[in-house]
């Protein structure tokens, strides 16, 4: 029983870490330009395709390449689409990102067909190890480690470097940041690049988990990440991260501990939670008050 509890907690931490990273990627961009980028899903998908196709060349090529592809996709979206919509309101930007998402899914269909592509990406991590009678998937541990390293690195970047401080300031109050002299274009590009790196990490974890990638590969986690970001408070970088983690953690525990006939509806319970938060704390659980109006 204790073994099962620990195992489920490690799995939940891992799921929370993955979703936390995905939500953080969305929160970083939202903080700066008020874009809840649904097309983040297609950045994850592109990075995952890259892992699948390049894995045969060696992990030392596939992983850096998948990160580069994610950063490039993210920056391309910004320059080709969103930079042309600077004065649009958040709702318009969200709808534009939906459109871009569907468009890219069709492009992936045309390029790679509707069938999933497979490769044994880091298959060693799919094994389980057993100690003290507790069986734990290596991937769960690896996911927690990857998320930890990325978060520590990001925290260092945001608090210790000038560029990071500028990004943090822009995410808190973009208009004032510009009035202080922080270059808007550079800080926006930086937020997209960082969200690309986070997307690549998510793509890696999911690709190792499933070993198969299709055109809508990144959609499910991006929906949940958006939900998580809203629950935690998309207005704050830490809110998005915590919200994403919470959704992943709770969903994983529900999947393990709910009876079979109920666990099929685990996502529905999460959305009930969302409705509750939107009704009683619309600014997000981690935001004080009802959030700050932004112009």
């Amino acid at each position: 029983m204790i073994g099962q509890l620990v195992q489920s907690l490690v799995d939940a931490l891992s799921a929370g870490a993955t979703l936390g990273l995905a939500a953080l990627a969305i929160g970083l961009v939202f903080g700066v330009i008020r874009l809840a980028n649904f097309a983040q899903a297609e950045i994850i998908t592109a990075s995952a395709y890259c892992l699948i196709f390049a894995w045969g060349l060696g992990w030392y090529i596939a992983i850096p390449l998948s990160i580069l592809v994610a950063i490039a996709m993210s920056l391309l979206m910004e320059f080709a689409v969103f930079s042309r919509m600077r004065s649009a309101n958040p709702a318009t930007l969200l709808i534009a990102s939906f459109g871009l998402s569907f468009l890219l899914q069709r492009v992936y269909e045309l390029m790679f067909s509707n069938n999933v592509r497979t490769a044994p990406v880091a298959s060693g991590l799919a094994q389980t190890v057993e100690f003290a009678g507790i069986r734990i998937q290596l991937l769960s541990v690896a996911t927690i480690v990857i998320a930890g390293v990325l978060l520590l690195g990001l925290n260092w970047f945001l608090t210790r470097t000038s560029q990071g401080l500028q990004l943090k300031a822009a995410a808190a109050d973009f208009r004032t940041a510009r009035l202080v002299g922080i270059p808007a274009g550079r800080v926006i590009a930086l937020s997209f690049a960082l969200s690309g790196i986070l997307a690549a990490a998510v793509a890696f974890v999911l690709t190792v988990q499933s070993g198969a990638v299709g055109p809508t590969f990144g959609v499910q986690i991006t929906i949940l990440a958006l939900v998580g970001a809203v629950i935690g408070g998309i207005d704050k970088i830490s809110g998005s991260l915590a919200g994403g983690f919470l959704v992943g953690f709770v969903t994983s525990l529900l999947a393990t501990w709910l009876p079979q006939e109920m666990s099929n509806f685990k996502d529905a319970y999460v959305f009930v939670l969302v409705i509750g938060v939107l009704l009683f704390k619309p600014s997000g659980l981690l935001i004080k008050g009802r959030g700050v109006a932004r112009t």
Partner: protein
Amino acid sequence: MSIGDKAGSGDGEYERGLCVQQLAVAYSGVPAVRGISLDVKAGEAVGLIGPNGAGKSSTLLGIMGAIARTGRVLVHGQDVAGLPPEKVVRRGVALVPEGRHVFAELSVADNLRLGAVARRDRAGYSEAMEHVLTLFPILRDFGHRQAGLLSGGQQQQLAIGRALMSDPDILLLDEPSLGLSPTAVDTVFEALDVIRAAGKAVLVVEQRAEFTIAFCDRTFVLHDGEITLTLKPEDAEKVDVLTKAYFG
């Protein structure tokens, strides 16, 4: 005092300082500022007063390029038209926004560091920091404190200090006394006096008419987006002049 002097001192394009010519700002087609002209020389403080909705803040935001505008804004004789705010800052103009808008979650020191992002002269960073900390000693004491935890007066000092970190020649302030205690207002305006004496051009938007007129070398009264009156310090105590300034 000169009623109806719409152009401030009119035709001057100063080598050092700010010269605004026919500045107009509109929101969704509704005019907020209707072609005003004014100038602020180096070492001079100029006030902009008027009732709510007169266009005072819009004037400052228009100068900064933070909102769409027409007309010319000359900084040391060079037009900054079409430049975004971050580039206007690099030309030597800094704005202390209404409501202070310090980065509440960042430390006082980090707020000041961010103010220096647009410095044209990176070498002078330490000197500028020392200057700001001497001008506002409280910021030295609270360097590691979260900016959001400071009092209103302390936040205003931080906002001015942050603006000074970019080494501006022209300092714009939007209602620096708003919500402050009389003591805090005195601290802020004493600092502005030092800043003016250091040769910077200061343009201050204020609600406290009497106080502003007395402090500034010249004060323009803005009404419905137009300059309707120019006042001198000696007009500060003339009740009829102030009444006319606000109620026409």
